């Protein structure tokens, strides 16, 4: 665990040192401690530092959200988006971008990643969360909740498709770029909000470590050891939604991190015990997203590739590995 933490710190520094423009390591350090030229300082303090901090927060939050969903639904392929939280956030963004056109009548580029889009995404994710909770209170069977969540996600995607169909190219492009995920355009006040939401979500998640372990033993067992299933479900759904919804609001729908990272943590530590798995997943999530961010700037020459393409390319082999049953992870549920 300490090793993972150390790795996170190393990658954090590496992420600061590498970027889409060339800057020598001593210059980065100077800028970081406020003694470099003003231009360098802006690049480091306004571009690289917020991006690296966002990678840590978003990586940890998405991964833990995925872990909670996998355990709650006892399904190795569950992730933050199975309940439609990401889709809900996407709907909020689509509503702002694609239908409120007079506010964003753009000719070419647009500058719009201000609070409007973030609040819309948050509202969308929150609305979906409330619907899922309402279903969850009425339905005893957790699989029903899963199915309702997935249906809801599909229905929302259809609505978004419809809006895309009727929108113009510029809006479409803006929306598509949003869906590619983005760690790089988040201001410090926004990072503060993301950090608060992540802290709240993680705090709730960490208090649920024991019930989560009990759920793995089956519902009947959980009841006998005094876990109140309905209440536990609601708390877990709330925590997972706050985490995933906030990250999606600030960074767009980050692909695969939520599904893949919990498995990586299980592989690394060879355990299903959430007391270890929870911090391990959070750290591994931060590590992977930092790594993805470093890779996304690799083409050099000022180009970047969208972070989602990188996380998917890391995530897909992991998911394949699970499906092929090589590690038998599925049996741990």
């Amino acid at each position, binding site marked *: 665990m300490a090793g993972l933490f150390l790795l996170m710190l190393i990658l954090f520094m590496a992420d600061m040192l590498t*970027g*889409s*423009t060339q800057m020598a390591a001593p210059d980065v350090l100077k800028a970081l401690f406020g003694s470099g030229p003003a*231009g360098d300082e*802006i*690049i480091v303090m*306004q*571009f*690289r530092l917020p991006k690296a901090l966002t990678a840590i927060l978003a990586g940890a939050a998405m991964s833990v959200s995925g872990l909670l969903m996998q355990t709650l639904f006892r399904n190795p392929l569950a992730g933050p988006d199975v309940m439609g939280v990401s889709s809900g956030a996407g709907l909020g963004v689509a509503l702002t971008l694609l239908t409120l*056109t*007079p506010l*964003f*009548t*753009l*000719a*070419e*580029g*647009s*500058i*719009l*990643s*201000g609070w409007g889009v973030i609040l819309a995404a948050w509202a969308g994710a929150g609305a979906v969360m409330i619907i899922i909770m309402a279903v969850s209170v009425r339905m005893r069977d957790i699989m029903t909740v899963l199915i309702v969540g997935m249906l809801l996600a599909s229905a929302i995607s259809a609505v978004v498709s419809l809006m895309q*169909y*009727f929108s*113009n*190219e510029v809006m479409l*492009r*803006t929306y598509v*770029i*949003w869906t590619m995920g*983005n*760690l*790089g*355009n988040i*201001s410090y006040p926004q990072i503060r909000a993301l950090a608060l939401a992540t802290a709240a979500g993680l705090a709730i998640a960490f208090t649920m470590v024991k019930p989560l372990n009990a759920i793995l033993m089956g519902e009947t067992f959980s009841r006998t050891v005094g876990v109140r299933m309905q209440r536990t479900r609601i708390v877990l759904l709330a925590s997972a939604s706050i985490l995933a919804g906030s990250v999606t609001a600030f960074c*767009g729908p980050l692909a695969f991190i939520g599904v893949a990272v919990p498995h990586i943590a299980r592989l690394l530590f060879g355990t299903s015990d959430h007391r270890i798995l929870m911090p391990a997943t959070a750290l591994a999530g931060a590590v992977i997203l930092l790594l993805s961010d470093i890779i996304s*700037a690799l083409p050099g*020459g*000022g*180009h*970047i590739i*969208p972070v989602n393409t990188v996380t998917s390319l890391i995530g897909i082999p992991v998911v394949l590995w699970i499906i092929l049953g090589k590690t038998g992870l599925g049996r741990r549920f």
Partner: protein
Amino acid sequence: MTRSLLLTVTAALILTSCRHAGQHQAARPAPDTAIAGRLTIEREKYYFKVTVSQPWQNSSGIEQVWYLVPRDSIIPAGISEDHTIRIPVRKMICMSTTHIAMMRALGADSLIAGISGSSLIYDSIVREGLRKGTIRDVGYEGSLNKELVVSLEPDLMMAYGVADPSTGNTSRLSGTGVKVFYNADYLEEHPLSRCEWIRLFGLLTGREEKADSIFRSVSGAYRELAARVREDATSRPKVLLGAPWEDVWYVSPSDSYIGRLIEDAGGHYIYSDMTGPNSVPYSVESVFRRAAEADLWINPGAAESLSEIAAGDPRLASLPLFREGKVWNNRRRVTETGGNDYWESAVVRPDMLLRDLVSIIHPELMPGYDQFYYRMLE
């Protein structure tokens, strides 16, 4: 009655002028042959042959040929009816705002029966026609209302292809009798080549002389001003262009339409080393580095004020040019619903666009000039 009489006279005039031109081709001054665009017009004895090379993006090697034959002539042997347009056209659908601008400049806007994307149109006459129902919005691509297109019975649908149109929805119109012309004006990299497309509209609407005269005077004024700037400007201020989308900044190549305009207006585009057919995504970080040395910023997306830019990405507010307030957008002439004359009439008036840019980049050369398309942000 008067209308049809007028048409007959026009057609007859064209016919005779064709004949004359066929005989004395050299006698007629070529409008402007210095710019090789994608449009080639060849004058044959009884018709015009119009060739569009590379009609859409990444279409090298592809050519589309049309024959413009006067209404009362017989289509010459060996020419397919499918590739023939009878001129002058009486009813047209214009899919792009640039087509509308050219029709308007020629005084041929009454021939427009349909347009696409009513909310993005600036022209007040066309908007009035839309409100009264004399002009209809036929939609675009996936939402193209094919039944409406057919029911309008246009002589021609002036369209544009973003990609190979055979994969798109517009191609489904083949077989309905509607002729679809893929106009490539928006792909022209030189502002004057883009303007030259007005000559096609001149032929189509029987206003050849007028079109040629507009093009000649516009290109003359453009070249004159560009030459004056080359002579008189003592510096080349560095220009930042465009705006980011999230963390991506699509950078226009220097040989693009706007890149040429900046160059001709005596500016030094900060990506002057980048050429190619398409915009390239760069990280905001890397653009920011170059932007730190820029003197002024044009076309910052949809932003209407400096504070809007700062709200979108606070980092941009720390640029020196931003602190000096040297930011101009191309949104002086816009409608409430998003129509922008920059994408409309400016295509026919690159000389005025250049004048705007010279007054921004070299205010000392144009003291007291009030910009037409551009506006300084506050």
